[in-house]
């Protein structure tokens, strides 16, 4: 049998470490576990859009808590991906107000043109489709969230194409400092 090499233990980048240090100042010293959710967000952004068991163990070590305390949280909140994902995770809102404005049709359209099925990733690894519940932008439905950005009013093939070509043009995924993703039209000021 070939000897298997142990996977390298993940490490936070210096930028992530600095951000974690800043976050920890937000809570009383004996309550640092409070920083668990924001640190898991950082971890997911740092390590390819999902949190592997090894990454979760790193988070536990960082906070000085038991790994189970991380696992039980990461499995509760829907934003943490517990399996590998494609380059872009498209989170499609499927709740009532979006459904009234065509989210079923949007999901079917996205499955057709990306080649991914909901819950899965396209064969080329570019797009993962995920259905999510209400994103709180119901007046601008239907909506897709990709990382920190909302794409709104995706009720025409043109709007969907514009979103996909913007995503395809992203050459790298800067993590820290936080990327400027741009606001959806509904939140622009003037």
């Amino acid at each position, binding site marked *: 049998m070939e000897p298997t090499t142990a996977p390298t233990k993940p490490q936070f980048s210096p930028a992530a470490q600095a951000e974690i240090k800043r976050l920890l100042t937000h809570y009383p010293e004996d309550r640092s*576990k409070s920083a668990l959710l924001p640190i898991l967000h950082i971890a997911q952004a740092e390590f390819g859009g999902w949190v592997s068991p090894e990454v979760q163990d790193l988070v536990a070590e960082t906070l000085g808590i038991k790994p189970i305390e991380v696992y039980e949280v990461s499995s509760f909140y829907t934003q943490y991906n517990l399996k590998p994902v494609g380059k872009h995770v498209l989170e499609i809102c499927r709740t009532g107000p979006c*459904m009234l404005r065509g989210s079923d049709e949007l999901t079917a359209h996205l499955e057709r043109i990306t080649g991914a099925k909901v819950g899965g990733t396209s064969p080329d690894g570019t797009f993962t489709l995920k259905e999510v519940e*209400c994103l709180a*932008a*119901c007046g601008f439905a239907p909506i897709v969230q990709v990382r920190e950005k909302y794409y709104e009013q995706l009720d025409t093939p043109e709007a969907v194409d514009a979103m996909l070509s913007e995503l395809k043009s992203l050459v790298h995924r800067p993590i820290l400092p936080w990327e400027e993703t741009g606001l959806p039209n509904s939140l622009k000021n003037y």
Partner: protein
Amino acid sequence: MGRKLLTEHINVEGIDTFEVYRKHGGYRSVEKALKTMTPDEVVEEVKKSGLRGRGGAGFPTGMKWSFLAKPEGVPRYLVCNADESEPGTFKDRQLMAKLPHLLIEGMITGSYALGARTSYIYIRGELLYVLRILEKAIAEAYAAGFLGENILGSGYSLDLHVHPGAGAYICGEETALLESLEGKRGNPRNKPPFPAVQGLYARPTVVNNVETIAAVVPIINDGGDEYAKLGVGKSTGTKLISACGHLNKPGIYEIELGVPVEEFIYSDEYCGGIWKGRDLKAVVAGGSSVPILPKELILKTAAGENRLMTYESLSDGGFVTGTMLGSGGFIAMDETTCIVKNTWNFSRFYHHESCGQCSPCREGTGWLEKVLHRLEHGHGSMHDIDLIVSVAKQIEGNTICPLGEAAAWPVAAAVRHFRHEFEWHVTNPKEATMPGAAYRGAPVLA
């Protein structure tokens, strides 16, 4: 046009910066409170204003504040609930992204009133881009001396932080929110003890919605009595309504409480009527968990009076012919909408979002989703219609938190007013499951 207390300057260029916000009268309430009022006087003004919680429950804010325990030498907290997740509701996102300093100002004035030295804004994790806007604005407020040590030389000090969730509707329930803020699963706590006695880190805590805290700013600036002059009866002041669904002009509207529902839906000042020239079929007026009403009952009460956008008028008739103002998430459905499909969709939502702690909710929401799925897809029986009503009844009142009620009410109301449509799915499954099919018969009004 009614008066706008929160959103008057929302479209001013640069209003998200400290400088422009300050130029438009920003942070006056902090100056007034810290320099000329005692904390108890601030609470008193909020009581006088008649302000009621804008997150959905409508509980009087001043009273909630006065319940806060104040044991000597124990820190206490003000926590802002920015976990906006009730389907149909999207006002807080807008307020925070465009007017971050309004929320920060309200947090400072509110924290002073409650004696909090550290306060948190708990924002849903999907809105990390809004969290960054808030953090930038908070840094500006620190730099200008409105946060940190000895604010404006008053001797009062406050730290303010933003904390993200990570995708869980249940964290909008205040004790689940506090668990989540402590780095745990969002399982609601048994009450008592209430957060006012044992909240964050088991310390006395007040949790208020974003819009509630923002409303403290005009209340302190102009006085509680002035605020209470707006609105009707016990529904004082203004309210942000998130309008969505089949409307010509969906969006966020700040209304003076008391606007007739008919005017809100049809006038060009607000939603501009139903899209595509269609007729209105039904409305969910206060977020997905409040009872759905057919057109006839949302425009007029059972007694034939005009329905108004107030807590009292919308709940006129109780759950037999009325509904609730709730969070102000106003979802309009046109004549082509399938009520069975919509009810199934909402049930799927509550099943997905149940934390699983209480058996009636964990199991019951699953049953509701499953049985509604077969009704919607033409495999249901007449017995199934009574079954979902019975399951809903068994969830209601038997859970730690109100998610149980939130899951049960929409089902009960949909069957009450649209029973014929559910029956039509059983008797005409082929027709009912055709794409775009919707029952056009008359609803049940009593």
